[in-house]
């Protein structure tokens, strides 16, 4: 279940496609290096949700909340390092779509079911993007994304 994108525009378009498939309450985990395309992809999801403000990775606040026709909870878990504190995210998650960058540091909070999206840096413009469903309700979405 892998797609190749050749420029930012394609990555955004792919994110927008996913944004249109996601239901409220769903979680997407974005794996990959810095500059791997995760934030670009999230911009696409934001476009599907009709979010007008700039989407960038939320280093400063760790969680950014964007309001569109639905809410987007954009998390950068890089520095959370799996600590045990309650981040209050579970209180929000039901009411919008959660996108987590660096989910490897977010194991404590990650719900049992989510969609994993994995980014591979090929060259400056090219990215290999894989969709891995965790849980039944994400299977059809992953399939849809790669056809």
């Amino acid at each position, binding site marked *: 279940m892998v797609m190749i994108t050749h420029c930012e525009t394609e990555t955004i378009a792919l994110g927008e496609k996913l944004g249109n498939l996601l239901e409220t309450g769903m979680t997407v985990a974005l794996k990959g290096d810095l500059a791997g395309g995760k934030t670009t992809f999230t911009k696409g999801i934001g476009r599907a949700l009709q979010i007008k403000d700039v989407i960038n990775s939320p280093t400063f606040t760790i969680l950014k909340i964007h309001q569109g026709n639905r809410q987007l909870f954009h998390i950068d878990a890089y520095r959370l390092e799996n600590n*045990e*504190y*309650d981040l*209050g995210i*579970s*209180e929000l*998650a*039901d009411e919008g779509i959660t996108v987590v960058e660096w989910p490897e540091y977010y194991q404590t909070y990650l*719900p049992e079911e989510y969609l994993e999206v994995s980014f591979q840096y090929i060259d400056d413009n090219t990215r290999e993007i894989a969709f891995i469903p965790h849980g039944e309700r994400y299977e059809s979405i992953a399939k849809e994304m790669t056809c």
Partner: protein
Amino acid sequence: MLTLCIDTAYKYLTCALIRDDQIIAAYSKECFKQQSEQVFTAIKEVFSAAGARKEEIDSICISEGPGSYTGVRIAMTIAKVIGELKPCDVYTISSLRLYAANRSNCMAVMDARADRVYVGIYNGSEVVMEDCALPIKEIDAKDYLIVGDGALLGRENDYGNIPQAFLLTRPMWKKADQIAYLTPKYLKESESYQR
């Protein structure tokens, strides 16, 4: 003695004025996640309905949680700021205990998300089980009257008469010795990040 009671912990926005042993005005509406905008409208309403002046209050009683994180902070912030500056006494009560309102064999439950509930068991003024967060599947509710989110346990939702509950539970109100150190009871993790 005039006490302003406020509960914003969960689905309702409740304000009540209790003078001596009587509720002299009350406001209670379902207002989930809108409390922060509406709370002063509600407080204004109870003062004008009671014909009381806000200078007259000598104490505030609030529900301290558990509940929605944003919700519990609203009443707590009002109580802390006014309690410290006016100054006046501040009393707190668990929101679950408030909803149980001294009923016998009563289990108070509230959705804690992710298939968990906040739950406390009360028998009149006695605490049978301290408030805590538990997975729904671990809850055995068959011997109890259920208040709060009963639907989560296959029963009816019932939040009771919250203004009345403030009056009934008055002997159980805890007086804050140091208002500055009051914190909401979030229940799901350590109470402070200071450590």
